[in-house]
């Protein structure tokens, strides 16, 4: 990445669009804005953004229809949603969005999510064999989890779950995504498997399993590994 990170803001409400762009500018990003899907697609081709902030309620098309095109361009997508609906969040995450923020949001919160997206992108998903999370080191090549030089023994399912979370560290992975990745497509609705395995992982990894800090839960949506 050379120079400032490029961020495209797709939002139909002009005042919000301008405010987000201002905040991005002030924080050293190169921001561009689009008020509808048509403009957005044209701009994506031209500027190749690192991160796209996408509002779902666009005048010409539903924002979620843009998701595949945006992902194709290689950008990380941060979805803005006005509806506090779990189903919608799960749907956009499953469609490839990297994260979501519910309106009205704190600018600080939005900036923090943008940073997470950029960090993940900079790291390059899948190219990093070793991921640090808290005081843990997860070695994807050797399938090892190490704390203070000592290997922690995990069952195969525990390891697969942790590895999937680690590959997308900082990003919410939906229940269905995790269940598919670890147990296979036939089990994508067996949330109970996930709960039980997350529990046993926490028992082995968290300093205080009663107040989990490493594997965080988004109620009804999924889990994220706190990097």
């Amino acid at each position, binding site marked *: 990445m050379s120079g400032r990170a490029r961020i495209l803001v797709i939002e139909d409400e002009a005042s919000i669009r301008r405010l987000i762009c*201002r905040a991005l500018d002030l924080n050293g990003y190169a921001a561009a804005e689009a008020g509808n899907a048509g403009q957005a697609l044209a701009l994506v081709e031209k500027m190749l953004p690192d991160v796209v902030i996408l509002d779902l309620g666009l005048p010409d098309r539903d924002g979620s229809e843009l998701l595949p095109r945006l992902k194709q361009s290689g950008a990380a997508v941060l979805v803005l949603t006005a509806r*506090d609906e779990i189903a919608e969040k799960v749907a956009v995450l499953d469609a490839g969005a990297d994260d979501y923020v519910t309106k*009205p949001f704190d600018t600080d919160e939005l900036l923090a999510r943008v940073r997470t997206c950029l960090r993940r992108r900079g790291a390059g998903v899948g190219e990093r064999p070793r991921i640090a999370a808290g005081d843990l080191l997860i070695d994807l090549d050797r399938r090892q989890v190490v704390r203070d030089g000592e290997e922690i023994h995990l069952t195969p399912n525990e390891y697969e779950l942790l590895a999937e979370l680690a590959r997308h560290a900082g990003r919410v992975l939906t229940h269905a995504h995790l269940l598919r990745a670890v147990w296979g497509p036939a089990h994508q609705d067996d949330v*109970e*498997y996930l709960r039980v*395995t997350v529990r046993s992982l926490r028992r082995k990894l968290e300093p205080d399993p009663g107040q989990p800090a490493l594997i*965080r839960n988004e109620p009804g949506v999924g889990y994220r590994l706190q990097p």
Partner: protein
Amino acid sequence: MAGLPALSRPWGPRRGWTDYGWSALAIVLLTAVAKAVEPWIGYPSIDLFYLLPVILAATFFGLRPGVATAIASGVFYNFFFIPPQHTFHIHDPQDVATVIVLVIVAIVISQLAGRVRAQAEANERRAKENAVIAAFTGTLAALSDETETAQAICSEIARLFDVEAVLLAPRRDGLSLIAATPDRVALDADAHSAASAACGEGDDGAVAVPTESDWRFRPIEGGLGTMAVVGIRGPRSIELLARAGSDLFAAIVERAARAYERLRVEEEIRGVDALRERERLRSTLLSSIGHDLRTPLTALTAAAEALAAREEHSDLVSTIRGEAKRLKRFFDDLIDMTRIESGSLAPRAEPVDLTDAASAAVDDLRLAMEAHHVRVDVPPNLPLVRTDPNLLHHILINLLDNAAKFSPAGSEVRLQGEEMEGGVELCVTDEGPGLPAGREAMVFDTFARLEGSDRTGGTGLGLAIVKGFAEAMGLRVGAANRRGRHGARLSIFFPAKLVVPTSGADG
């Protein structure tokens, strides 16, 4: 209705002098024929000839013309054929027997024929009645308005039974006249009270309501109770109302009741449709509040934050930020409450780890509870519970937020989870003033606030939402004061049927 004949007096056999005339003619003609053939067959066989007019008369004209024909036949036979001819003397007892047999034949045949005729007449009457009823039913089916239906009922009854007819139905201020035939029928007070009596008394009052009035009333009733009263006045009114008086009248009233029932059901369906439409409007309104109000609020918040970045210490800017946050909470509370009260909550239960739920809620309220010590004690070995994670999240946020609002800065707020007899409990305790003794549970009522504690604002809906969400998911809520200490203890309880049995399986 117009094409159908009115049903008048009962049909009977025509009894006129013409019957006797025809019978006499038949006897005369037969006598002439018999006279002509007598030379060949002899007089004793002629008596058989006389069976013919007797049978004809008895069959077509009934008993009396039949018997008269039998006697006349006997007389003719005697006079013209039995020797001595042209006198009424009978010498042979066999000839006396002939006359008697003729009379008996006439009686028997007229009885049989009468029975057949009565049957045919009854069938014909029934067919006519059925046609009348079918036509009436058809007429009623085409109507979807109560007044028109009532008018159709009245005019049909008036036409069929040759009476005056009225129809009254209960209205908010008592029975009122809906339709009448003829148009300008007025009911006096007596008639009105008779109608009310018929309306109120139901089944047994149907027959004879004691009344000073010359109107007679009968309730129109069905599965929905008494829907109206029909009244008639005329020479036949008492006969028609007697239990066995008129099947046709009973059938007409019965059809009227069906029509009324149908109108009621249609009315209710229209009501349900209206309700559904209202519900649709409400949910449209909810989602538009959700979207359209959040958007300006987002702009407001973002603008305030941009301002704050420039003027760090401005009170005004922090007021704007704070109030925008409060406004958002108001909207959220209102939307949640509306969802509860409209019954449009659709909880989606899945196995939930309460440790997860607790830490997510505490995490979300980090900023709002900065001034408090938050202690979370939800052990990670509690069983999973089947519940809607999103609604549970809102419940916990509201409970924690409530505790923070009503307890002093620097005090401790605890969120605890415990498995106990018959289920799992989550409770939030604070070190505030506690709840008014004896009225603890009222804290969950809509707009309930603790005495003198509206200092921190809020819609007063937070705990009502907790209760609404909890009940929608089959949880119980509890409110109490902490034992031996200041502070409130609010809890939600997951009964055993929501607790996921521990499988012990590890993925």
